[in-house]
């Protein structure tokens, strides 16, 4: 069964078409990567999945339920929250700078589960532990945490509502490489332990290779190539995918000097 079915999504801002005829499905437990350069429309796709943007055309269903555009009740929004959650790129602005890390998680839990304060606190600490944070971090403000730790808090916040799908919008792009590896390992562990699907949005093909089963490549709002991630990276069929692959810096890679005029 697929947890996400996006069909012929389209988003137009004025004269600019950000997303054009994008369709994909995500099966239960699958990890789908959406790859593309800046401005390819991949973040707009993510925002439409979460209901942060309304598609100009096309349909989205999550967990078998269609999500038509329009206002929904508070209860329906909370139900939808338990289907899909997101982790944003910027670990600095994705947390309220005045809210302590533990309160971030407890607020989510209070919103979704009837728990006593003691149970809530216990569950928040369990979540902290599952993302590799310690009890002492719960009392800290975002500015007292490193970028990697903040991203862990953001992941814990998303997991707190026990979603079926987690959208990761460039979730490791703002972190340095060693922290990236830690977070990617954490995400892989989480997927092993829980029945959760990922939509992993990235421009970084090295990262995509580690985290996803299937991938779609977007350019100028359109899907140019799709398939199994490993095959796609090994034998890209499209020139654009090849160009993206060629752009990945690797050992021995030297920048080519442009001819001086």
């Amino acid at each position, binding site marked *: 069964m697929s947890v996400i079915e996006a069909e012929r999504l389209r988003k137009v801002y004025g004269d600019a078409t950000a997303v054009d005829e994008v369709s994909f499905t995500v099966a239960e437990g699958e990890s789908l990567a959406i790859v593309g350069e800046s401005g390819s429309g991949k973040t707009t796709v993510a925002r439409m999945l979460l209901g942060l943007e309304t598609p100009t055309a096309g349909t989205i269903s999550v967990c078998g339920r269609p999500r038509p555009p329009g206002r929904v009740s508070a209860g329906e929004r909370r139900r939808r929250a338990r289907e899909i959650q997101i982790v944003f790129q910027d670990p600095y602005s994705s947390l*309220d700078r005045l809210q302590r890390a533990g309160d971030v998680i407890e607020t989510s839990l209070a919103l979704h589960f009837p728990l006593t304060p003691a149970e809530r606190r216990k569950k928040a600490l369990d979540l902290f532990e599952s993302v590799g944070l310690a009890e002492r971090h719960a009392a800290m403000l975002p500015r007292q945490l490193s970028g990697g730790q903040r991203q862990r808090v953001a992941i814990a916040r998303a997991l707190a509502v026990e979603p079926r799908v987690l959208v990761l919008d460039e979730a490791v792009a703002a972190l340095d490489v060693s922290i990236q590896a830690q977070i990617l390992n954490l995400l892989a562990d989480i997927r092993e332990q829980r029945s959760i699907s990922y939509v992993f949005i990235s421009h970084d093909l090295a990262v995509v290779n580690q985290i996803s089963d299937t991938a779609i490549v977007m350019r100028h709002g359109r899907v140019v190539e799709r398939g199994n991630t490993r095959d796609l990276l090994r034998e890209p069929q499209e020139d654009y995918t090849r160009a993206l692959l060629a752009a990945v810096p690797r050992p021995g890679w030297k920048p080519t000097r442009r001819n001086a005029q």
Partner: protein
Amino acid sequence: MTRRLGGPGVAAAVLLAAIVAITLLAPLLAPYNPDLPDLFNALGGATAAHPLGGDALGRDVLSRLMYGARTTLLAPVLVICVASAAGTTLAIVAAWAGGKVDAVVSRLLDVLFSVPGIVFALVTVAVLGPGVPGVVIGLAVAYTPYVARVVRSAALRERGLPYVAAAWVQGRSATAICLRHLLPNLRPIIVAQSVSALGFAVIDVAAVSFLGLGVQPPTADWGLMVKSGLDSAMRGQPLEALSAGLLIALVVAAVNLLGDRLGRQS
């Protein structure tokens, strides 16, 4: 806090605190009843018994200054409390709702902003009659856009941050997001803008009193003292107008400096 305000900021805060303390303790500190005429002291110069002399009716100017801070400062504080509350509410609602609501609120604020505060006070005084309530209501309306416009643009910026989107995706209500997240984060800007508006409100309230439409005699009030002191000055006793005018200037300068310092850190 002290380090953020810097030397001049602390000096301004101390000065304002001292004035508030003196006016609260005026019944204990004032040498005379501020409303008691004493014909022997009418238009009297500075003496040991009356350091700032007497006004046209012989009332002690120093005592009247001490009591006068009450209306002079309380009315502007009321104006700003009401204007901040209304301005912040409008700003957050406009920034959150966006679209047409934002357009209507913003145009309304632009219209209010284009009319001088004194004019609003004149209108409400014309309806309610001279006195503090009319002045406070009129000026509160006039100062609402002063707070709202700045807070709205800050709220728009704040609203665009991912943590707000995250809270929305988590299923939090708009009210909860506005009150628990936006408002606390906007607080420094609201405070700074309100304090700097307070400086202007002090001038406007004093000006309306000077015109005879605000605080009514015989209540002691600095704006009123500048007005009655002008007559005394013509008759050779400038201390009343000078001392009241100087205090208004000092308070406005101190409040503006404080607002500026508070604004810098936010």
